[in-house]
């Protein structure tokens, strides 16, 4: 039940925030904050109460499940479950949700109620994605998180918000269509093999598929997740969407929505189609490496601060793609760590960019420079985040990147070496950010207030998390461990290798 409440609290909170908006904007802010806080408490309880306490590696993978029959004819259930991976993603979602409500405190002044409604519903959809274990339900939540996000960009975004919103919608919707077809194909294949219709993840896990059919179905899933991740060359919606979205939208997009793509790869592509995905792995890894370098190079090229951060996301998520398809636990742990670390650092970076834009009314780095003078706290925070972004050891991103590369080295030396060169490219874009924004000569005279107490509280919390996970990442690694080793040894593989036939 706790899983259902996780989602329900946000849905109800969203409605209340909408209703409260017209009375006083502060009400909907506090309602949103409260419901996210309650949710985070629930998630933490789930984490701590899990078998074996925080150290999930000692318990089984499944922490909680909930199954209600929904459309029995087609074998569709309302099936929620959580393992370590789901819990990690849930907590990341909620932490960033709180951060983005706080970051929008002064930025959003119009239709405040509806804004928070969309924010919370998008987050609820995301939680659904992380918790659903029925493919129909999963697809349903996949859509739920999309539509409110569309509104967030289209209504509260910046100059080219309509273009960006439509582009975002078309890319995700179009790729989602392929996933829907693949889901249906998988269900029908399962039906023709066993005679029963089911959308349940655990029933479908063992489905035996002809190799080329498995490849096509796998590609259907992969395409949807690769667009979401995003992998080069399906990434071009991201810079527009991230740049045009309001701060909260960017934080949620980068910190959470992109992770649904990575999550999907780990949860569905690898376990459902182990053989096909394994055959496809070299291509996927290569795409990951291309993403690392291409994203970093384009980040360096940008003049718009927010676009720079957006492209850096593409580079960081390239490590995730590389890690997932390197097909060993080391790299996979690295990929999950990278997901968490990227969520925290890039989320914080977007909050910083939002704060700068709110003060300067521009994102053009050509007009900034020497902001450290006016805003030393902002400068210190920005410097820290840039340094975390370039993968400095002792901070969370390093753990993710290093484990990923250490794992992928066993699989492909050339790809790993090329990806490692990405460390230089990351240094280049991170340092140019610091230089253009905070250092150098002032290009224009800015009278701007430094980060306030609320923003500093958010930033220091995120920074503390990044440092903590950088020097002691074990809680995350342990929590994810059972889920990840289960993903790498799915029942499907066992069934096939033993050749068990009815």
């Amino acid at each position, binding site marked *: 039940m706790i899983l259902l409440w996780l989602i329900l609290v946000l849905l109800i909170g969203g409605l209340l925030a909408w209703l409260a908006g017209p009375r006083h904007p502060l009400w909907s802010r506090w309602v949103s904050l409260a419901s996210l806080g309650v949710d985070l408490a629930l998630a933490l309880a789930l984490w701590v109460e899990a078998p074996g306490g925080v150290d999930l590696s000692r318990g089984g993978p499944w922490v909680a499940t909930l199954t209600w029959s929904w459309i029995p004819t087609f074998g569709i259930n309302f099936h929620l479950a959580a393992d370590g991976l789901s819990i990690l993603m849930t907590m990341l979602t909620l932490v960033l949700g709180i951060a983005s409500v706080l970051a929008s405190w002064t930025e959003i002044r119009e239709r405040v109620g509806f804004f928070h409604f969309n924010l919370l519903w998008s987050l609820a959809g995301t939680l659904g994605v992380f918790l659903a274990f029925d493919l129909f339900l999963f697809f349903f939540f996949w859509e739920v998180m999309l539509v409110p996000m569309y509104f967030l960009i289209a209504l509260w975004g910046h100059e080219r918000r309509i273009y960006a919103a439509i*582009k975002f919608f078309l890319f995700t919707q179009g790729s989602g269509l392929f996933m829907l077809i693949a889901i249906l194909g998988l269900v029908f294949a399962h039906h023709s093999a066993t005679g029963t219709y089911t959308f349940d993840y655990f029933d479908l896990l063992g489905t035996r598929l002809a190799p080329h059919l498995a490849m096509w179905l796998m590609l259907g899933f992969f395409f949807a997740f690769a667009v979401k991740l995003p992998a080069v060359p399906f990434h071009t919606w991201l*810079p527009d969407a991230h740049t045009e979205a309001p701060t909260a939208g960017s934080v949620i997009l980068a910190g959470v929505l992109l992770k649904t793509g990575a999550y999907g790869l780990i949860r569905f592509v690898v376990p459902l189609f182990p053989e096909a995905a394994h055959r496809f792995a070299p291509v996927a890894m290569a795409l990951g490496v291309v993403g690392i370098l291409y994203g970093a190079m384009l980040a360096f090229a940008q003049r718009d601060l927010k676009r720079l951060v957006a492209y850096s996301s593409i580079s960081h998520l390239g490590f995730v793609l590389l890690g997932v398809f390197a097909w060993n636990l080391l790299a996979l742990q690295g990929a999950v760590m990278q997901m968490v670390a990227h969520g925290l650092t890039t989320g914080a970076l977007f909050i910083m960019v939002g704060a700068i834009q709110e003060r300067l009314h521009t994102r053009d780095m050509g007009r900034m420079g020497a902001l450290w003078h006016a805003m030393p706290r902002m400068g210190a925070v920005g410097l820290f985040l840039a340094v975390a972004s370039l993968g400095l050891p002792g901070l969370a991103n390093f753990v993710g990147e290093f484990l990923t590369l250490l794992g992928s080295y066993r699989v492909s030396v050339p790809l790993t070496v090329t990806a490692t060169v990405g460390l230089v490219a990351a240094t280049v874009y991170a340092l140019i950010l610091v230089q253009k924004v905070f250092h150098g000569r002032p290009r224009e005279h800015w009278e701007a207030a430094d980060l306030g107490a609320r923003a500093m509280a958010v930033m220091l919390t995120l920074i503390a998390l990044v440092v903590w996970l950088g020097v002691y990442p074990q809680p995350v690694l342990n929590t994810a461990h059972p889920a990840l080793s289960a993903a790498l040894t799915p029942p499907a593989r066992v069934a096939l290798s033993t050749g068990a036939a009815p």
Partner: protein
Amino acid sequence: MAQLLWLVPLLPLLGFTALALTGGHLGRRAVAWIGAGSVGLSAALALWIAAGFLLHPPAGHAYTLTAWQWMAVEGFTPTIGFYLDPLSVVMMLVVTFVGFLIHLYSTEFMAGDPGYSRFFAYLNLFVASMLALVLADNLLFLYLGWEGVGLCSYLLIGFWYDDPDNGRAARKAFVVTRIGDVAFTVGLFVLFTHLGTLDIQPLMAQAAAQWPAGSALATTAAFLLLGGAVGKSAQLPLQTWLPDAMAGPTPVSALIHAATMVTAGVYLIARTHVLFALAPAAQLAVAVVGAATLLLAGFSALTQWDIKRILAYSTISQIGYMFLALGVGAWAVAIFHLMIHAFFKALLFLSAGVVIHALDDEHNIFRMGGLRRTLPAAFWPFLIGGLALSAVPFISAGFYSKDLIIFDAWSSASGSPWLWAAAWVGALMTSMYTFRLIFIAFFGEPRTQVTRRPGTRVMIPLVILSVLSVIGGCLELPAYMGNVHLFTGFLHLSLPAVHALAGDATETALELLSAAASLGGIYLAYVLFLRNPHWLRNLASQGTGAALHRFWFGDWAMDWLYDRLAVRPYYWFARVNRGDVVDAFYRGLALLSQALHEVLSETQTGTLRRYALGMTVGSLIVLSIAVFV
């Protein structure tokens, strides 16, 4: 007391945290106490621990302390752990002790700077990272320190961030060293993948057990680590960042870019000496890189006019000597020179700082002159440092350390006359460019007014370092002077001794030659730069002389080359592809569907007859397909 080892790096880290969190709201006095005090405490503790180590050596002359398990995944179990053996004892002492002196100096030197608190925060973070680097018991934790010092180096080179040139120099330093770090990182992948651990001592044991000497994997791994060392220690071909790094405040140049960080590569190779011994090709490369670098940097130093750049090239050159020593298997000798170099080069930079301050930020030696009389407080320390750098016989510590290297380059089993010749010519160059600087800046007529004189907190470090630069060599005396081997004897507890093929007689003969190089260089400098400066001026003003001068001045055109090969293409790509060529495809797709949409909407005419016609034709086609196919 060794149990308190973790406090040594923690104290400066706490200093950094305190300064960072207070964000410049503390008074200057408080900042100075926290900044210098934390390092001072750390140095005192280090001294205490070292004394304990000497008096009651732990079993096996090594002590391990694990703070906590950093992470544990699939057999990958790096710790936050410290390892104390004679090598790390020496490094810890050098870092904390020289570090403290420079902090003390900075409390006065930086007094007028608005970023006082920020400066000490970065400097404390640097000392903490450097201590992590030298005390780490596994390569991943070492790498943490390694990157940490790189970050602090970046922050401090660009400390005066208002000037974009400083920012450029800072970024260059970070990016170039990171290129080396890519090799280092891949080296870690190789080592862990094939040997299953990154804990240095087990790792070295595994390497020796599993890899035969000269095996491909050992050679690859050693070359990759060398890549990291070359970047950090500013050796060929990645030396180009160090001269530009002089944009930072002078205490930074003294601490980071002379005494400690840039020698991290030397430490890394000494620390992993077992691996390099297994890879003769890589070890030869270390020697060749060292020899080539010390020569090239020597020539470049001869042509510079910026006092700090001359010292920067001399640092590159002296680290070249250390690499040469490592390359011929004289591990302990390399560390000896590292320590002595830390003393005299810190001394040189700190006295250069006094000069620069006194002359209102003047860096050009040709606009100085006569400082011997007008600024003796800088002259005497600088002269003592210069004598040590030039390895003047008997009265300087540099003589004892450098001549051991030159001797080993000849006599070691892996040495050769060629390496010796390079080292000898390098020694000649060293005293020549050093005394060129001294003669031009400190002798002759004063050209700039002295406006400021140093106070006590500047003078105390200068005096202490001067003393060390004179007597530091007594730890290690050659056969004809009593055959003292205190330092190498201590280090040989953790590093193997060099196999010298030559006897004491050869040693004496070679040392005489080295002494001749040192004194000859000074004489040449006297003739060429003090007595007859017009000779060289004429030579360097026309034809090949001028071209050669330009070539050396510009660091053998390597900056120019990298600019053309890497920097410009990267900028070009960024400029051309700013709009993301991939997006053009999707934009094209959008335009195409828009066009098709227009074409199709043409058919929406509203004329009933057209629709009826369309339906009829369509039905006919469908029917005929159904019937005939």
